[in-house]
């Protein structure tokens, strides 16, 4: 069972990871983008964490939606709307809930990805954050179907996300700023896929006891 507090821990862990990896994410974005992904995500997650304390009722859905709209309002760039829609999409499936089962979490996660796909219109293989998110979604769903415990399930999802992230290296970008590089985008790891891996790993870390 994933409790409201666990969601908060997840978000906080992700914010801490982004802050710690801010320079690394920005460096990845220097190679094939505009050197701001770490700065963007850090600004946004800092704002999100600042909002968490202000939430009165332990409603997972509205908490995730607040996170999403805060990201939309503070990040800008491509990642603002993308991560914003991710959290808002997740939140939409969890309104009024104080806890989530693994299956509910997997469903919410998939809905979040739907938000990313709707606004970003990227396909698998386009070298975007989807490369990390989609394998994680599939791993979560499989784990839920096989009734794996939450902690190990997230561990599986993180491993899948990490593999997807690493697989972005040889890809030629077809969406986002990296696509301007054409063939020259190959050979570099996608910054958004990297932050998305951190997102999943943060849950695995935060929920290792679940």
């Amino acid at each position, binding site marked *: 069972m994933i409790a409201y507090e666990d969601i908060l821990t997840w978000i906080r862990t992700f914010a801490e990871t982004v802050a710690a990896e801010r320079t690394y994410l920005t460096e990845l974005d220097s190679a094939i983008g505009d050197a701001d992904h770490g700065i963007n995500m850090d600004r946004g997650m800092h704002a999100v964490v600042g909002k968490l304390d202000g939430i009165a009722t332990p409603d997972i859905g509205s908490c995730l939606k607040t996170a999403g709209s805060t990201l939309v309002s503070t990040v800008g760039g491509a990642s603002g709307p993308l991560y914003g829609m991710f959290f808002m999409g997740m939140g939409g499936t969890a309104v009024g809930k104080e806890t989530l089962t693994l299956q509910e979490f997997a469903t919410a996660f998939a809905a979040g990805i739907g938000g990313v796909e709707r*606004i970003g219109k990227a396909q698998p293989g386009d070298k975007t954050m989807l490369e990390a998110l989609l394998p994680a979604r599939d791993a979560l769903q499989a784990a839920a179907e096989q009734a794996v415990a939450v902690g190990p399930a997230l561990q599986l999802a993180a491993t899948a996300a990490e593999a997807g992230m690493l697989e972005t290296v040889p890809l030629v970008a077809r969406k986002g700023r990296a696509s301007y590089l054409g063939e020259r985008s190959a050979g570099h790891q996608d910054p958004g896929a990297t932050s998305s891996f951190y997102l999943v790993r943060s849950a695995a870390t935060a929920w290792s006891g679940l």
Partner: protein
Amino acid sequence: MKKLINAPEDVVDEALAGMAAAHADLIRVEAPNIVVRRNAPRPGKVGIISGGGSGHEPMHGGFVGMGMLDAACPGAVFTSPVPDQMLAATKAVDGGAGVLHIVKNYTGDIMNFEMAAEMARAEGIDVSAIVIADDVAVKDSLWTAGRRGVGGTVLAEKIVGAAAEAGADLATVTALCQKVQDNVRSMGMALTSCTVPQAGKPTFEIGDDEMEIGVGIHGEPGRTRMKLASADEITDMLATPILDDLPFERGDKVLAFVNGMGGTPLIELYIVYNALKKILDGRGVVIARNLVGDYITSLDMAGFSITLLRLDDEFTRLWDAPVHTPGLRWGV
């Protein structure tokens, strides 16, 4: 990193405060970081807004004023602004005749502007949007994000702004903006990298004898990295792909825009303009109007871009119309 700044995170706010103080007769700066024409909204006038990451000054804030933009939305450095800004700007300039969003073709800009447009429409404001994608350094394709929006944006803002000032309706200015996009092409190059203040170090490494051809205005790598060449050769490397792309043809009248990237002195831009004129003369392309200077920059990057706009009488008339903004001024 050598910059005239205080804290990196305060760069945009302080620069906007400086701009507002220096040009209080033309603009006001409001929360959430939008630059609004002092006398906006004007009843019955179509509002023209644009926006994008900061670091390209004077674009866009420096183009707010009479005959150009009604508002600009500056994001963090090199980062698209957030929808809240475009929504607030749209509301601030809507005089009942609708608002045109001029959007540079970057994924982030597109998505954030689209979200804002939807929100504004939900509040009953008529919003249209045109995407500028004029950078021939990038291969155009249905399957990718397409070309970047660069120097053509400045010309679009001037021409569309003049039409709106003269009372054109939303459908007309929208079509006009698309017509600019259809007739404008650009390409840039860099001698040095820019440095994003919050990143603290150059976006890319480049050798003392190297240059980047086809660079983007955010220091995005370009088409090719090569050994430094002469101004004449470099100008040809940018002008030829531009000319061949539209294509510009013998007898065409053009507006030739030589733009400095922020770290390039004017003396060099005039050398480039001299080289460009020889190339266009050789092709029988007539420079009927020109603009030489820093208008769409990339922080401290040394380099330049060339933009050519094919002129017809309508464009020429609207280009010549009075404009009074911090960054462009004539006729008043």
